[in-house]
């Protein structure tokens, strides 16, 4: 396990499976109700969020607290960030609190990797720009393997705004590493040129959606209409909405949330038995527990703590 979780690109299949196994052990040990574990007692986890994200932040917070860590949330608004402090200065200031881990969400690609260079803490990328969202991909793989078993040979379609989606990028990498075959589908204006380099196929229509074992719908934001990526919501819905007519009975439906009912998904499929959207949210907690455990408790088990603290600028 690397010292940080910055991107799925840094992990191999073994690394992913190790995190998933750890997550499964947390889920199984505690049954339906996850009990609090003492693993990270006395250690600090800082959530540093430069974008609003109630879901991801609370999921990380619950995961860390379940492991008995002391959690502090820093939001970009109302903080030193608004006073013009640079990311580097903020991170070095927060590092003075000696956190075991910094969980960072930032609107720009590579921010988490930069933070990792500036702090001795373990860094978890909770989303960097449109680049990656590795814990989302891990919880998606976890959810799917729970539902389908191994992903080898499974066909997964990711539908919607690929261009602006860090979830799509991390999922393409994670699903293909687990042996699945990924197809991305959406309006040509929202599929970045060169995305095939990540190892996926590209489709512009849902005509062949029936081949998919898994349909993963992405959130469609209204500002894409304003910027003429698609001419109208109506036309997008007509071409790309996953509804009861398009979704097959044996297909699994996923979505990273929050869902725009009536846009990327029709109301009925959200509540259908094919949908695992709530299971994804549940998986989020155990997978993030597993990530924190592997980075913090795992590392401590393998390497003894140094007698004196290392330099702040590692």
């Amino acid at each position, binding site marked *: 396990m690397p010292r940080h979780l910055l991107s799925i690109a840094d992990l191999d299949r073994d690394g992913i499976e190790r995190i998933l196994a750890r997550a499964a052990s947390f889920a199984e040990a505690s049954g339906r109700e996850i009990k609090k574990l003492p693993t990270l007692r006395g250690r600090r986890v800082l959530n540093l969020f430069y974008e609003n994200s109630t879901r991801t932040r609370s999921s990380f917070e619950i995961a860390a607290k379940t492991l008995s860590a002391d959690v502090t949330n820093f939001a970009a608004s109302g903080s030193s960030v608004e006073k013009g402090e*640079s*990311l*580097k200065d903020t991170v070095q200031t927060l590092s003075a609190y000696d956190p075991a881990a910094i969980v960072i969400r*930032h*609107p*720009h*690609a*590579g*921010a988490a*990797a*930069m933070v990792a260079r500036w702090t001795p803490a373990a860094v978890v990328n909770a989303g*960097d*720009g*449109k*680049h*990656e969202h590795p814990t989302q991909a891990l919880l998606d793989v976890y959810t799917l393997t729970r539902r389908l078993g191994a992903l080898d040979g499974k066909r997964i379609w990711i539908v919607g705004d690929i261009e*602006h*989606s*860090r979830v799509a*990028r991390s999922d393409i990498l994670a699903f293909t590493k687990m042996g699945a075959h990924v197809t991305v589908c959406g309006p040509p204006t929202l599929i*970045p*040129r*060169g*995305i*095939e*380099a*990540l190892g996926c196929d590209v489709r512009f229509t849902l005509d062949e959606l029936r081949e998919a074992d898994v349909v993963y719908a992405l959130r469609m934001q209204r500002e894409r209409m304003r910027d003429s990526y698609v001419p109208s919501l109506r036309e997008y819905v007509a071409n790309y909405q996953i509804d009861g007519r398009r979704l097959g009975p044996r297909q699994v439906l996923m979505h990273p949330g929050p869902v725009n009912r009536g846009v990327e998904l029709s109301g009925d499929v959200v509540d259908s038995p094919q949908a695992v959207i709530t299971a994804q949210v549940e998986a989020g907690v155990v997978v993030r527990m597993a990530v924190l455990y592997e980075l913090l408790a795992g590392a401590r088990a393998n390497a003894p703590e140094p007698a004196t603290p290392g330099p702040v600028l590692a």
Partner: protein
Amino acid sequence: MAAPRLVRAPAPDATLVVRRAHVLDPNAGIDAPHDVVVRDGEIAEITPPGDAAVPAGAEVVDGEGRHLFPGFVDPHVHLRTPGQEHKEDIETGTRAAAAGGYCMVVAMPNTDPVLDNAPLLNAVREEAQRDARIPVGFMPAITRGLQGAELTEMQELREAGAIGFTDDGRPVVSAGILRRAMRYQKLCGGVIALHEEDPTLSAGGVMHEGEVSARLGLAGYPSVGESTMVARDAALALDERARTHFQHLSAWQSVEALAAARAAGAPVSGAASPHHLLLTDEAVLTLDTRMKMNPPLRTERDRQAVIAGLRDGTIECIATDHAPHATFEKDAPFEEAPMGTTGLETAFAAVYTGLVRPGVLTLEVLVERLTAGARLMDLPVPTIAPGAPANLCLVDLEATWLVGESGYESRSENCCFAGRELNGRVLLTVAAGAVAYRERSFALSEVRP
């Protein structure tokens, strides 16, 4: 009577003899070992190796095993004065240039405030007369405030010493305004240099649009965002017969557009930057902000096209687009970091190491392309010939060095070649007759009383 186009701080005229260096000057047609005698800042004599008589008081420089080139000329640098002296100023910028073997540089106007009026031009020229290590020329803006809307007082600026005009850093989006500038050029002269970018196509792009941007989730700036503007403005240049120079060409389509325009008879020229000759967007994969520049690093196909254009003369010169930024500014996420790389101290060595040593480009072509910027800016081309002002650089082609290891002469450190081992070290630069740079380990040589 217009002001001289180049200015620098007073410096003593050099008197020196470079012994037994391999003199390579494509403009003068020299490519053999010689002694070169510089007396009172002028090239006095070129003799067979070992034959030169040493004038009284002359320094004797051992050129054995080294190469002597005409000083290089960079038609595109950012000296950041006025207003951004925390990045660079005229003193540090021209010192960096001298360390790279340059004897003339032309500074861009995207300063704060923008260099768009004669009083400001007079002020920066005064500063250069105090601080510039080598002769420097200034290229004021085409449009006031680089806003693309109203022309600057081009005639007054020319009389005050403007080399030419550019809105560098930004395109002249309006074809109508550019056409006006081209027509007005008939009155005032001065090349019009263009940063070509269609902002509706580059649209917030922070790197080349392609596989790497798709992977990283970064907004891409496609090649056609540059080339369509090259084609448009080449058509205007042809129609108006306006001397037009295309800066830092980065896309294969742009090279084709330039070649087509030239074939049609348009009075256009182009420049390539070392980073576009040597790096591709693959270098951005690590999100190293030193790899963020505008135009962006593009694909191997683009790189090869720019190299081919430089080799066959479609692209006449190398320009560094030396763009210093403070470390704290570059220490930001890639999308937030400012665009630009420094280049003056590494241009020769980087292109020599990357293209000449592997046999892609001849040394002769490299030296020619590093000096041709003078001709394109209507400046005297540095030449190693008796009677010419001494503009020289002595280079040890075998010396290797690690970029950044011993710091930079520039105030800034944002060099895209940092950490690379390069061949070719500039030992001595003479600019407009004065010694402008001496490499630290290259001690003052024997001086005859």
